[in-house]
């Protein structure tokens, strides 16, 4: 069977399916559970400086099996309490990325140092937190700020740093380029897509916070477009996330340029057992399509095997 090992820079995973941040990542035993189920690795819940309860409920709106809107509000036990959770998973050998979020470069680098001490293999910077200067925009929408934070974190720690990109911007590749220039080791794309749910009977927004983030199959095309456009511009590896529920979906991300993928919402729709099925399914798919390994698929859709024939008769170019 095709080799499923997935390499993201210097990090290597037994398969390309990682648990996405914010899902099953608050408790150490859940991180361990995802690994035992079969995940290639896991990203922790995004951890901040202080314990945060997150937004009040409702924090979730479901759409069939194709979408989910959430506004959890970055609940987390804070960087002082969280290392005991990491320890549970790390001692069992789970390859972990520590996700952190903060208000500015200084807070990010302090968190990075603390997170690095827990023994995680790398860091993921969640830049979807609100911009300190207000206006409700996200830090990750500003390339200069992304560069500044990435740089500060890279100065502070030796670990590989993945920068997680928001799709809620005119040009995600521009943000990715800023992260790369500042020393990021990989780009994770994408976080959730800005959305809102209204209850027509109650005449009000459903989520306590108002707006939220859309995830699940509905955003797969959005995530693929981001990965595609980022892959055209950056040289560092990309980790694809957004709407993956099947080995096929994952392969689409790999072909678009991702070296590994993350899975969030599908855990709600399919259960954690999904991580047990996906590697085998991907292996069969790669065998059928003649790819000897995951690495051989990465970015392949940018240079398809069957070249386009000359076609001067096309209506438009």
């Amino acid at each position, binding site marked *: 069977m095709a080799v499923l090992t997935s390499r993201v820079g210097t990090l290597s995973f037994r398969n390309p399916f990682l648990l996405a941040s914010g899902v*099953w990542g608050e*408790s150490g035993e859940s991180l361990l*559970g995802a690994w035992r189920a079969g995940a290639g690795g896991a990203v922790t819940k995004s951890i901040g400086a202080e314990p945060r309860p997150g937004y009040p409920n409702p924090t*979730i709106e479901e759409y069939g099996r194709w979408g989910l809107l959430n506004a959890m509000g970055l609940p987390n036990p804070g960087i002082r309490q969280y290392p005991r959770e990491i320890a549970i998973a790390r001692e069992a050998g789970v390859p972990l990325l520590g996700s952190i979020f903060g208000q500015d470069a200084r807070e990010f680098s302090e968190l990075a140092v603390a997170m690095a001490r827990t023994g995680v293999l790398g860091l993921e910077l969640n830049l979807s937190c609100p911009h300190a200067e207000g206006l409700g925009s996200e830090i990750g929408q500003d390339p200069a700020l992304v560069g500044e934070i990435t740089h500060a974190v890279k100065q502070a720690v030796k670990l590989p740093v993945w920068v997680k990109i928001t799709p809620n911007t005119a040009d995600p590749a521009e943000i990715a380029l800023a992260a790369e220039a500042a020393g990021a080791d990989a780009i994770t794309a994408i976080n959730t897509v800005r959305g809102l749910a209204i*209850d027509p009977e109650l005449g009000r927004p*459903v989520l306590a916070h108002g707006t939220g983030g859309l995830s699940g199959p509905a955003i797969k095309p959005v995530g693929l477009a981001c990965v595609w456009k980022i892959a055209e511009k950056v040289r560092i590896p990309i980790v694809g996330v957004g709407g993956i529920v099947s080995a096929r979906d994952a392969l689409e991300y790999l072909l678009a340029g991702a070296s590994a993928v993350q899975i969030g*919402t599908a855990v709600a729709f399919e*259960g954690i057992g999904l991580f047990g099925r996906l590697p085998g399914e991907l292996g069969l798919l790669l065998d059928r399509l003649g790819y000897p390994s995951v690495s051989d698929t990465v970015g392949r859709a940018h240079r398809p095997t069957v070249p386009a024939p000359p076609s001067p008769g096309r209506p438009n170019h």
Partner: protein
Amino acid sequence: MRRVCRIEERVVETPSTVTLRFDDPTVARPGQFVMIWVPGDDELPMSLSYTGPRKGVTVKRMGDTSGHLLGIAPGTPVGIRGPYGGAFDLSPRRVLVVGGGSGTAVLAPAAEAAHAGGSEVSFALGATTAPEILFSDRLRPLAKELRVSTDDGSRGHHGFVTEVASELLASDRFDAVWTCGPEVMMRKVAEAARPSGTPVFCSVERHMKCALGMCDACALGPYHVCTDGPVFRSEELLALPEFGRWHRDASGSRVGPGA
């Protein structure tokens, strides 16, 4: 899928609990819970105390939202998601139901369903004081035996319901014990049942947000209460160092004496 239901009936059960009934054709089994959203306020997990088409939740005043929910008038719309979680296995022929305070809410529909299916059901219902005993009128008609205890001795046994449960477990034989209440209480019930080897099923509460087994808010050891529970076998729970000792708050921080 979320839906909006109007509260059809509001029944004051005890000084601190109120049952709210609403019509919702979704199929539910005793033991399951819903997420109930009080528009303009929070959304809370509540076990179904009635599982038929006219469903019900029996709410105890804890903080602001449960207080607000408890006070809402018939006709008011609420948001409902669910039912979520697993149910009680109704096959045991002789069941002992041990309810602590408002914990009886989730046990009542299970007891009714088991009784309707031909099982013998006995009850040990406890509360702090006599008027807080929940559902004794509802359950007495189907009880093989119904015993009550109060912390202040104002009704029935003066003491803990676990003591009544122990007596019943010693004097009678059961195929299963169903219990819901404070975790220390459920732990004692489980210990009392151990000599006879009677399996004990506990309905457990943890902080809940998504109810979809995703957000990890309700993590309990390797389990998620929203999808793996809320009904667990006592052995699963007793194996967890945290059971009866600590839980996680909304931030995921461990809180409680043993945290």
